[in-house]
């Protein structure tokens, strides 16, 4: 489908007009926000955020060393580690692995990186069936759509819409009960698990010290995608490293709480390598594809800390802009506040010039981010980059004039008063269309404060 973020303005207008979208999203995100806050009640969030941030800072500041250390450990555990600079390279490698094992069916668990790579459509072009097994992802795949949230892919869909979809595509009875729909998906996917030769997953963390891949989930599909197959391919970003096994005591405590308000998700799988001598099942091969795809370009820039992100989705849930327009409006696999950073930073600022502006800068994202990314500060500095990159004559003029007015109190007062006169005469509507289409202008007073103050002082 490719990146659509350049069309943000059209996309969000289309989304915001959908009658049920805002209701669905509000309900779901506000519920997530509430359970998140509750889950942090019994634990010291500031401490955890502090530690998580420090550990991520350490990792990123020595990324090459930790990647090497990880590679050595993982290879020692008999994993095959492959570095891919671009999406093409990563896709080609996965295809190669699939072909060399004569794979027909792949079971996939949730991974944002594979979305970023457009991996599933690519494999399907080569005649390999690649099935999303996370319920939300499966729904979205059946609908021929993209996920609209990084942890809750089908958050934009109502149960009714899902029932209709299952009825159409799977021939299920038209029953909108979530337990029924879930059972339907289980039935279909169970067969896929039993016939698949290969599994693809992401990884939430890669531990440099031990070479483990950590996969966090609730449904048990990742556990099956990584267990019920001959070959397991992990596709993830180079920034997912954490230095020590013990660092998990911090990350395990923040991830579930931040994303779904759970103290612990149902399943956390630590994958160390392929089947060992005393095991009777598990994959014979484990591949780890480490993807750069724009990430290393953040190093050494003021946006380096954006690489701390653990993709928990908390910033999406609290974002009032996201809540009103949904994930598809962003035109990128990464929506919401973090998407408005990652999309221009990974894929080019000129490809997403509006995203850094699509925020009221309320800062709620920064407040909840478990790894302490100052999200709204980054949005602000990206705005500057975009302004420099994409000259707008009108805007340049506006802000030059603003500067000139503000540097001279006399001129400022004059313009202010003139504005007041025009405002009272009802002549400002035309130049403030963005405001007045849906809102009234305030009443303009006859005197400014400074003139009232001056008069008061003299008398």
């Amino acid at each position, binding site marked *: 489908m490719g990146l659509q973020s350049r069309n943000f303005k059209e996309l969000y207008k289309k989304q915001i007009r959908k009658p049920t979208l805002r209701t669905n999203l509000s309900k779901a995100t506000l519920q997530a926000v509430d359970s998140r806050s509750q889950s942090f009640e019994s634990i010291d969030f500031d401490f955890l955020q502090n530690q998580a941030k420090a550990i991520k800072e350490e990792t990123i500041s020595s990324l090459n060393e930790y990647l090497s250390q990880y590679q050595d450990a993982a290879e020692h555990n008999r994993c095959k580690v492959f570095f891919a600079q671009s999406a093409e390279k990563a896709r080609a490698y996965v295809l190669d692995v699939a072909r060399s094992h004569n794979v027909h069916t792949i079971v996939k668990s949730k991974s944002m990186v594979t979305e970023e790579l457009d991996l599933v459509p690519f494999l399907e072009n080569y005649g390999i069936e690649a099935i999303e097994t996370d319920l939300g992802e499966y729904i979205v795949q059946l609908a021929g759509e993209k996920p609209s949230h990084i942890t809750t892919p089908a958050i934009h869909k109502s149960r009714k819409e899902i029932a209709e979809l299952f009825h159409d595509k799977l021939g299920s009875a038209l029953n909108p009960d979530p337990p029924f729909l879930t059972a339907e998906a289980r039935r279909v996917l169970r067969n896929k698990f039993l016939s698949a030769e290969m599994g693809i997953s992401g990884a939430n963390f890669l531990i440099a010290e031990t070479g483990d891949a950590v996969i966090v989930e609730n449904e048990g599909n990742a556990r099956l995608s990584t267990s019920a197959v001959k070959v397991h391919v992990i596709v993830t970003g180079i920034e997912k490293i954490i230095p020590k096994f013990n660092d998990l005591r911090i990350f395990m405590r923040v991830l579930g709480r931040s994303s779904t308000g759970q103290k612990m998700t149902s399943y956390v799988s630590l994958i160390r390598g392929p089947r060992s001598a005393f095991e009777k099942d598990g994959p014979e091969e484990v591949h780890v594809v480490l993807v750069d795809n724009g990430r290393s370009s953040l190093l050494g820039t003021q946006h380096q800390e954006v690489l701390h992100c653990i993709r928990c989705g908390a910033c999406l849930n609290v974002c009032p802009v996201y809540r009103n327009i949904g994930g598809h409006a962003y035109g990128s696999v990464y929506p919401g506040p973090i998407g408005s950073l990652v999309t221009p930073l990974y894929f080019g600022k000129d490809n997403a010039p509006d995203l850094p502006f*699509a925020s009221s800068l309320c800062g*709620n994202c920064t407040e909840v981010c478990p790894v302490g990314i100052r999200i709204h500060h980054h949005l602000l500095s990206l705005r500057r980059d975009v302004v420099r990159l994409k000259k707008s004559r009108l805007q340049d003029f506006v802000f030059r004039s603003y500067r000139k007015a503000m540097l001279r109190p006399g001129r*400022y007062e004059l313009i*202010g008063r003139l504005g007041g006169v025009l405002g009272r005469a009802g002549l400002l509507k035309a130049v403030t269309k963005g405001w007045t289409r849906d809102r009234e202008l305030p009443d303009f007073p006859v005197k400014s404060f*400074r003139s009232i103050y*001056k008069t008061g002082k003299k008398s």
Partner: protein
Amino acid sequence: MRVFLFVPCFVDQIFPNVAVSTLKVLEHVGCEVIFPEKQTCCGQPAYNSGYFDEARLVAMHEVNAFLDYRGTSSEKSIARFDSERDYIVGPSGSCTAMMRNFYPELLKDDPRYEEISRKFSSRAFELTEFISKIIGVDRFKGKLNITVSYHDSCHSLRELKVKQEPRNILTRIEGLKFVELPYTEVCCGFGGTFSVKFPDISVAMAEEKLKNFRVTGAEVLVSADTSCLMHLDGWARRNGTKARFAHIAEIMAESIS
């Protein structure tokens, strides 16, 4: 206690009553108030729009308007700003946040950076914060029969970490009934230039906020930021929603008259 009054540009020009009320409240709690007349704007509109160079110049102008203040002919004594004793106080969480949290970022390469953050940014306070933390709420007394709810502006709440202060002040007013707003911490949708760049998102957020306000049954929605109120009031009037929107300084001033 001497206070150098900071009045945001749009408060000065469009909502002078907020500034008049602030002045009154500050004097009521025993402050000597000085208004340095060279001040204009904190620079936030340009900063939030990505025009950092413009913002920097305006910010420097604003800093100098306070730090280089030498009094006016109408004042008897020459009141120089003393960064050890004096405070800069304004009726806006947002502009205070700009001065306290964003100036350091915006001006970090300026040779005077150290001086500015010590003498200026760290002395800048939002009104309710100043009264609670520096003056002490017990210096303020008022009486007003009214039911209010309170909207936390994002910059007050998250940049300045001001949450309890305005509530403590409001609940001190005799006769005032305070009702908490559901989802009070959610942004109202103003967001400066965001409100005109993406008006449909901005008003969708206003709609949500006012829905929650109606649940409270209060007569007045109070906030420490006029910009949020202007946005909400603009939407309410367009949509025939009857409600009063008032800056906390206005309510405080009314309660002491």
